[in-house]
């Protein structure tokens, strides 16, 4: 007779001393782990619920301005520095980690219209309603020194926007025309005009550094090449765009914030039809900024909310609002892609988390692992109705909630009418026009 009976030595399964960690022998045999899918689903459901519980995006409010915040600028080299310009011509430099103002200067009379930090991070430019462009040192002046601009340029007309080249000492301003300036000269090296209009924003492409885009008040978006003497092309839309932002990772794409409550992502090669229409705001969109990953962007709106959109989704994944926040004028996504900064009408700058439920600070390896695991589970089961319902739910202020509803009703009515018209006319007489095509009037080259 040959016999063997299972006999385990406890020494192999129990820790030796109390200081050791417990031994956990594993066996991944699927029959020992029944209900794989239902258990994972339960975990995903719990993770989604917890995400909603821990979604506390608001971090801090930076107060100190004496008028509405009109523009923000990220420091190009330092993550913890932020510059803000207000409607009374004051510029403040903030230390974000300490959440305090480190420097205040009276830059302009009237609004500070635009502000940008030079790519080296040693100085910054401001433009204001007083028709001047000023260059300032980034360092605070020493004791006894006076706060004076390095350089002042007097323009002929009011400047409304400003952006700096990524690598060279060249910057662009917009007002009644788009001007390209050399830092060393007091007159523009090039001026672009296309019809009589005024421009509200100008942006350099961060990848193809010689390209520029600007939004004009005649409802058009104009693209330029700095090396050429004439603009490249423009697209005219049904409503005016307020600002635009280039995708930092995909050189061809840009997103513009429009007065018709939508944002449009364009491919600059094919302006006839936007790649995506991003809807959700219930009032004019005032500013937009991409995350450094190029996967998402954040928009600020007149409806007192901040929304985050995935680059390729038609609706926002997140909405931020507070009771006290008024019309949000300017928005920035921080360079480490973790935070969002919004400047609003009621003189405050707010610091938000880009991922509302993210835990800040250094994570232990096990915490990180758990977060990754739950993230993956949420992704896997995101389309199950129960989970999607919880993940999508956001509390909205009453006014916005009702306005959204109203807009939906209006849209449905319009669509219904069009359907009825189509039904009662000759086939093909009323063609189906997609949402993307609706908002573009023409493209001019």
């Amino acid at each position, binding site marked *: *007779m*040959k*016999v*063997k*009976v*299972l*006999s*385990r030595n*406890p020494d*192999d*399964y*129990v820790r030796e001393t109390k200081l050791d960690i*417990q*031994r*956990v*022998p*594993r*066996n*991944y*045999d*699927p*029959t*020992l*782990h*029944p*209900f*794989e*899918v*239902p*258990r994972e*689903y*339960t*975990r995903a459901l*719990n993770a989604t619920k917890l995400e909603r519980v821990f979604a506390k995006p608001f971090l801090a409010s930076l107060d100190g301005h004496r008028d509405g915040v009109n523009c923000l600028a990220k420091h190009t080299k330092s993550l913890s520095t932020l510059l803000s310009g207000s409607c009374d011509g004051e510029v403040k430099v903030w230390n974000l980690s300490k959440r305090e103002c480190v420097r205040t200067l009276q830059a302009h009379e009237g609004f500070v219209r635009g502000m940008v930090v030079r790519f080296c991070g040693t100085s910054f430019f401001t433009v204001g309603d007083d028709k001047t462009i000023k260059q300032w040192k980034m360092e605070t002046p020493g004791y006894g020194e006076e706060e004076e601009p390095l350089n002042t340029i007097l323009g002929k007309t009011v400047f409304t926007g400003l952006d700096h080249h990524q690598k060279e000492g060249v910057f662009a301003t917009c007002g009644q025309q788009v001007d390209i300036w050399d830092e060393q000269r007091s007159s523009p090296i090039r001026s672009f005009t296309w019809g009589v209009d005024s421009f509200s924003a100008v942006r350099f492409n961060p990848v193809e550094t010689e390209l520029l885009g600007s939004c004009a008040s005649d409802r058009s978006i104009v693209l330029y090449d700095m090396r050429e003497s004439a603009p490249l092309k423009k697209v005219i839309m049904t409503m005016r765009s307020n600002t635009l932002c280039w995708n930092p990772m995909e050189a061809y794409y840009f997103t513009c914030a429009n007065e018709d409550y939508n944002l449009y992502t364009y491919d600059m090669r094919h302006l006839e039809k936007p790649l995506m229409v991003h809807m959700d705001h219930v009032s004019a969109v005032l500013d937009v900024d991409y995350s450094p990953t190029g996967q998402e962007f954040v928009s600020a709106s007149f409806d007192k909310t901040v929304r985050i959109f995935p680059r390729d989704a038609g609706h926002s994944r997140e909405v931020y609002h507070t009771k006290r926040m008024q019309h949000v004028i300017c928005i920035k996504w921080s360079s480490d892609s973790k935070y969002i900064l919004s400047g609003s009408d009621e003189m405050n700058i707010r610091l938000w988390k880009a991922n509302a439920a993210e835990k800040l600070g250094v994570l232990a390896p096990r915490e990180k692992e758990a977060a990754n695991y739950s993230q993956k589970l949420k992704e896997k089961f995101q389309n*199950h109705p129960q989970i999607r319902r919880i993940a999508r739910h956001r509390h909205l202020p009453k006014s916005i909630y009702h306005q959204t509803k109203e807009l939906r009703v209006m849209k*449905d009515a319009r*669509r219904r009418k*069009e*359907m009825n018209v*189509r039904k009662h006319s000759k086939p093909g007489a009323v063609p*189906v026009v997609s949402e993307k095509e609706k908002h573009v009037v023409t493209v001019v080259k």
Partner: protein
Amino acid sequence: MASPGEETVSVPHVGKKKKAPSRYWQEQQKEETKDGAVKGTTNPTAVDSGPKPPKQKKRKLKHEQNKNKKFLKHDQNKNKKLISGKSDPFPGKPRIPGDRLQKFKRKNKMKKPPRQHGKLRKLIVRSEEASDMAQKQAARFDLLLPEEAGFLEGDEGEDTCLISQEDIANAVDITSGAKHFNLKLSQFGPYRVDYNKTGRHLLIGGRRGHVACIDWQSKHLMCEINVMETVNDVKWLHSESMYAVAQKKWLYIYDSNGIELHCIRKFNDVLRMQFLPYHFLLATASATSFLQYLDVSVGKEVAAINTKTGRLDVMCQNPQNAIIHLGHPNGTVTLWSPNQKEALVKMLCHQGGVRSVAVDKTGTYMVTSGMDKKLKVYDLRAFKPLKSYFLPAGASCLSLSQKGLLSAATGDIVQVYRDVWSTPVTKPYMAHRVRGAVWGLHFCPFEDVLGVGHQDGFTSMLVPGAGEPNFDGLDANPFRSAKQRQEWEVKALLDKIQPELISLDPTELGHVDRATFQQKHEDRVKALGFDPLAKVKFIPRYKKKGRSSAGRVEKRKKQVAHEDQRDIIRKAMEDKRKTEEERNRKEQKKSLLSSQKSALDRFKK
């Protein structure tokens, strides 16, 4: 010459010729080189002694030599030398046996979507890669599991079923030998038995009110009470701190010190109980034909189903999908979930009443025994009978072990069978006679032990090869500490599966819900007035230099139209081919059958 190289051993300067200790990989290499030498013409003696091979052969040999060279070169590449000068005897990753890979296979390979769905394609490819890697890793890890299953083999001519328990207990080590014991409890007789999920704790309940829970390996008695009432069944709940006792009238829950925690008056006349560990549900079958589910984590009754089939005293659960199987006096077995008032499946299994039911760990096979003295094995995937055995006395209790051993009690004899569903079994693997009629049978998880409750107390039997040798520490750890148990309890409660998710196919949640998508799509089309997913009509692009003349445009349109047409034709052909094949196969089968002569053929004209 202080370095311990091979040469130092092979060229000794003093004394006897020492041989280097042989290594099995060296042997292999030697064999290989020998083979090469024989095959190739490099060996001069072979060439000299043998007759000269003809030219053709020579060429062949040359070819072979080249092949050998190539092989060697390949080998050299593989056997990269280490710094020490030795080469890795096992280069590359080890091969994984196919059956292990099969064990961890979760799903079939997905079909890659066409190129135009680039994103989806990438996503699918990536997820396939991930699951493939996980499968391989799990299979690799499986090779490293520390324990191996037990076994019992007789000598030549010796029958394993004749080997007595005492012999086995004497032959194995002391700790294992101590796992065979008898508890003589003749007063409160016959006993029901239950082991908890980790297999550390044993609960016995005597018909006349005696309930005891024991840490059976250390023989430490945790509590012993007499409930002064008839006890119909006992069951551990999720951990060893609580158990349920079905008494004469109500269902009671006690803790491991024997203190009554709850008396649940909603559950009356309970005869049998099953605990679903991942759902935290206690399923009870009562004499009033009610099947009730109690959620033990919140203490609520989840469902009460009137089965309308009379007294329910045969019950078991399918551990893979948490479906309850009930056996009935009319010979049917019914399958129940808490979500449906009707039985999911009704199977007529026996001519007489059903006496006992058991389902195996993988949820594939069901074993039933009935009053017609038959033991039947069913395949639960197809709900079809696989095997039918005749037991002279009929089996009153059945139990299946983790490794698939079947124990059947006939009167006071406990028989253990092996491979009941794969091979026709003629005689038992083991047999043991206890002192009274058997009332409860339960294999201990993760141990080679079978607990038998009978008229005269409790017997713990050694059944080598019954238990799963390697447990998973995060699921059921027999060696867990109090702290580990607490942590496990919290995690298990967080992962508690809702009773609504119980269904015949536990992977249903992971399937694509096409019906809902179609419904949604239809709604969308209705709201929009057009189909957004419809194929767009082909509009030829405008081309310069006169290539967009009306004729050319028409031609291009036609090309595209033809392409579409071709797709349709291709599909139709494929379908046709398949049906043809199917028909051919059927005909072949038919012809095969008809070629065999039957007894009735002689009456044919």
